[in-house]
């Protein structure tokens, strides 16, 4: 997903000299296309994310379209106030690329886990939050990020994500109905969509009619679809590789809470905790009940309860 995004962005940057990639001294073997092919459109800010972020705002105010790039919390939480005051308040055309959504860098330890970023970003005014679920969504997000002048946060998987659907020309704020169904709707965002897709397939094989929606934009969220699903389905399950507070589940609940729903909401996410165990993305998902079987069990529990 990360490479697909960077490749598409570098294609677009070749035709737009104002696109600048600013790395926080990370991106080995990823950002080559920028520094080899377009050295004037690449700058390494060093291990100095606060300065990188404020500088990006300054450059954007001089007409550049700046992308800051680093791992998970470094371009986001590390320099949160620079994002708030300098990028967002000044409406600067800066896109923040955060790589390693959720447990993308699982074995690296908690410093590298991107598990609260969406929630923190979501409460900031004037930011778009992109959270693609596979490489095809990431390619489209690269295109959308160039098209919009608004500031944005782009949450990317580290790589090796399963394809969830083909390339689609969706727009900012639109969800994607990947699988159709009429009893259960699963909402997901980010690399964990593969678990959601597997769960959807298992449930449908069990004759529990299950729909799957991905949300490549978490802010603004697709309110129309959420409201419609609240009316049409019996159960909505949100699935995210993120703390259960502040992310997709919260965004969905905020919409559902404003109307009378047929559907009940259940959530799959991290139970408001930091992770100390060491392991791969898959391993940590298993340890924290974020896998397809956990999604299936959540649905079955609800049905049995009923």
């Amino acid at each position, binding site marked *: 997903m990360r490479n697909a995004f960077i490749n598409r962005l570098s294609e677009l940057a070749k035709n737009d000299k104002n696109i600048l990639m600013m790395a926080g001294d990370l991106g080995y073997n990823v950002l080559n296309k920028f520094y080899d092919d377009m050295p004037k459109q690449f700058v390494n800010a060093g291990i100095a994310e*606060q*300065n990188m972020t*404020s500088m990006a705002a*300054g450059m954007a105010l001089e007409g550049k379209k700046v992308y800051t790039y680093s791992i998970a919390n470094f371009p986001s939480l590390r320099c949160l106030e620079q994002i708030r*005051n300098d990028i967002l*308040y*000044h409406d600067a055309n800066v896109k923040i690329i955060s790589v390693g959504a959720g447990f993308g860098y699982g074995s690296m330890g908690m410093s590298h886990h991107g598990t609260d970023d969406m929630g923190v970003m979501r409460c900031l005014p004037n930011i778009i939050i992109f959270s693609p679920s596979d490489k095809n969504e990431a390619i489209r997000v690269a295109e959308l990020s160039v098209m919009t002048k608004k500031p944005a946060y782009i949450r990317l998987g580290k790589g090796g994500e399963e394809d969830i659907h083909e390339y689609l020309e969706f727009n900012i704020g639109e969800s994607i109905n990947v699988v159709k169904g009429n009893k259960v709707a699963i909402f997901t965002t980010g690399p964990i969509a593969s678990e959601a897709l597997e769960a959807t397939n298992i449930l449908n094989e069990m004759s529990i009619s299950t729909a799957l929606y991905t949300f490549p934009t978490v802010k603004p969220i697709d309110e129309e679809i959420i409201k419609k699903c609240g009316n049409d389905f019996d159960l909505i399950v949100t699935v995210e590789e993120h703390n259960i507070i502040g992310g997709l589940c919260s965004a969905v609940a905020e919409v559902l809470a404003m109307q009378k729903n047929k559907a009940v909401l259940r959530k799959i996410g991290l139970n408001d905790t930091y992770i100390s165990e060491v392991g791969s993305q898959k391993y940590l998902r298993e340890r924290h009940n974020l896998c397809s079987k956990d999604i299936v069990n959540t649905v079955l529990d609800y049905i049995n309860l009923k």
Partner: protein
Amino acid sequence: MNSKTLACQIRKDCLEMAYLSKGSHIACALSIADIVAVLYSDILKFNPEDPKDDKRDRFILSKGHAGSAVYSALARSGFFDPEILKTHYANGSILSGHVSHKTVPGIEISTGALGHGVSIGAGMAYALKLNNKENRVFVIVGDGECDEGSVWEMALFSAQHHLNNFTIIIDKNRFQALGKCQDILKNENLKEKFELFGFKAMEIDGHSHDEIRKSLKVTSKDKPICIVANTVKGKGVSFMENDLKWHYKNPDEEQYKYALREVESEYDQ
């Protein structure tokens, strides 16, 4: 308006603003009054008719709490009606305590959180060079503000990338919010530090208009410029000078009138 007249006017305006608004930070504004006056009288290219004019130099007040001095300079340079200065801090005013670009014509960047303005300035300088533009970028930063790590991140970057269109002026008034800088975080030898980081650095009397003017005209082939301006917090008003409480307090009527007389008599000399 020549720089001496403007500096006197800035001090008078700042005193009036602090008196009417009961706002804080009067001493911080007084310490940069001469630097701001020289910038707006003799150095900066700007156009009050078109505050976003491409030809303008970029000026950022990184120590945004000294906003009243810049508001005064802008009003006296024709950006807005000086009568508006009287609304500083008031409900519905365009003039917030810390400078805001959203509401005030001529304010380039909103600041207030320390250590941001210098980095935004470096970003502007970098982009202006990429765009082959001649405009210069000037930033006033506090000596206390240099506690912020981001200031030193900016210093590393600016020197590495030869931002010779970029000048930072450190208002070295030797005080920060809770006391003397030397008693809080001893961050001395700023000129030498910036030199070691790769700046062309100089140290001046931050109240001598000749020295300020001369230093702001300094250019370098390949280095960013750092002017360490030795200033007096509260400069121009005897009872406010070097007294921490005027970081917070505002003058009552008697103090205000006394202060005005002092500022005016200093100018008459």
